[in-house]
């Protein structure tokens, strides 16, 4: 249990020890400087207190060496702080491969999360301990921010952008998460709990609770048929459109000769604004689905297309760039 007046929150993710170490390191340096300056001031304040009315001080002029010394010393320390902070940050901004992806949508003033199997939660987030978790964040209105103090991570949720954040929970338990970017009236109550579970519990929870909700892959598959994607995107690549098998994560060769990685953002764009990037050897036939799909439906479609990753990729008629054409 924590003491009544703790200094830092619980450490429950891979980042927590790093961030706390940074805190201690920088605090140490600052205390050192603070102590030197305070001592010097207090010492002089009493030692050189004016004894007679007309007294003047003894002139001491600057010594360039001293000045250089106290420019260089803090500079070096500052660079260490910068470098260490940068290492942690770069790690944070670049998610490892093979993460467990959870979609999180913020809106005034609630959080909706969608587990990989489509289970939806509101103001709750369940994650397994020890897994690399990546949250893909979208906003439906203003800017929000997903903040879990115990994990020492936060990321703004910006409308019109897909931001991502990742972490690896290291300790089962229930932890507060907050909205940490001011978003209007109920900003302060736009929070909830992250529950970190043992992987087995998590799996059980996933299958146990998911009563009403369809699995997003299944929902996506249904949508894929309903929205008549299937009419063009045939799995064997003989249709008018590329097969989507094995698409996710691969390199797509575009008509203008460049290649892109088929990540979430790309697939999303391909659906909403089909003609923004045209796959090589295909006509710009695909209709824009802009405005016809909700965020959640898009997530479901993406989930379905992702699930095709393990499907056999047809030799022709796929949008994937052959290895030789890769840059």
């Amino acid at each position, binding site marked *: 249990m924590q003491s009544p007046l703790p200094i830092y929150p619980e450490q429950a993710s891979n980042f927590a020890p790093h961030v706390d170490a940074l805190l201690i390191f920088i605090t140490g340096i600052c205390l050192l400087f603070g102590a030197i300056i305070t001592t010097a001031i207090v010492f002089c304040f009493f030692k050189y207190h004016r004894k007679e009315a007309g007294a003047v001080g003894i002139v001491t002029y600057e010594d360039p060496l001293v000045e250089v010394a106290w420019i260089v010393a803090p500079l070096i320390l500052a660079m260490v702080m910068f470098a260490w902070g940068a290492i942690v940050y770069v790690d944070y901004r670049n998610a490892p491969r093979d993460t467990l992806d959870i979609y999180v949508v913020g809106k005034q003033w609630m959080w909706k999360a969608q587990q990989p199997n489509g289970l939806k939660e509101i103001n709750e987030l369940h994650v397994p301990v020890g897994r690399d978790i990546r949250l893909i964040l979208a906003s439906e209105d203003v800017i929000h921010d997903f903040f879990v103090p115990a994990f020492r991570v936060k990321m703004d949720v910006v409308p019109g952008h897909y931001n991502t954040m990742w972490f690896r929970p290291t300790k089962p338990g229930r932890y507060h998460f907050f909205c940490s970017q001011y978003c209007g009236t109920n900003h302060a109550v736009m929070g909830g709990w992250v529950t970190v579970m043992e992987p087995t519990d998590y799996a059980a929870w996933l299958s146990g609770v998911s009563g009403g909700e369809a699995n997003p892959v299944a929902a996506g598959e249904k949508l894929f048929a309903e929205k008549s994607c299937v009419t063009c995107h045939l799995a064997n690549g003989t249709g008018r459109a590329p097969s989507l098998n094995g698409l996710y994560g691969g390199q797509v060769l575009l008509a203008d000769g460049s290649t892109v990685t088929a990540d979430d953002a790309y697939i999303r764009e391909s659906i909403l*604004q089909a*003609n*923004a990037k045209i796959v090589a050897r295909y006509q*710009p036939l695909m209709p824009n689905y*802009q405005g016809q799909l909700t965020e959640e439906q898009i997530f479901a479609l993406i989930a379905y297309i992702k699930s095709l990753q393990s499907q056999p990729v047809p030799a022709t008629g796929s949008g994937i760039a052959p290895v030789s054409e890769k840059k």
Partner: protein
Amino acid sequence: MRRGVLFNATFSEAKQEQGVHRTGELYGQFQTLDQQKESATFGMWIFLVTEVLFFGGMFLTYTINRHEYFTAFGIGSNTLDITLGTVNTIVLIMSSFTMAMAVWSAETGKKKLVPLFLILTLGLGCVFLGIKFVEYKQKFEHHLIPGRNFAITYRSSHPAPGDDPKEIALEKEEVEKAFASDPDANSHAQLYFSLYFAMTGLHALHMIVGAGLIVWLIKASLRGRFTPQYNTPVEIVGLYWHFVDIVWIYLFPLLYLIDRHR
């Protein structure tokens, strides 16, 4: 090193060496007329720096959005009347020239020419604003004012009797092409027009302020106030006027000349 030696020459000492004889009213806070003139000119330059950054903020917004939505910006730009735009550019450059001549007349003591050139400048400025007004009116008629009624397709689908059918057909084709690659082109063209109106609007506002200043100068110059010894007001208003011209020199290609070749 003795700092004193290097930096001892201060303003007031330095100025005494200069031999220009100035006249005019010396305001109480100054020691010499030289100092007064120098302060005024320097002050205007500093003010122009703030203007650079003021417009700079908009140019940045423009740059980023144009980069993102080039197609939509292209069709937006192509609806502008390039003839009016070019004429206006020339008008404004001319007015800058007459302004420079007004300053020259004041500096060389051609007392009659000063008001003449100022009136020419004012006239050209008004022509510019008039043309701008005509353009705004056109945009209004073509539903190109950002807001609920904005429709980039309006003109091509509602041609007015006088419109050249070939031009309309061309515009229609372009707009359709744009929509094919950017289904949100209407929004994004609206963004273009938001910037168009914000930038040209603020530019026009600067022109109006400048015109007011010139009216004031004309009055003073008709009374023969400006002489080789005293012409600071003409000079600093001139600086301002030229600056406004420079803004337009950038606005013209950036707003009118996007994606014209097609």
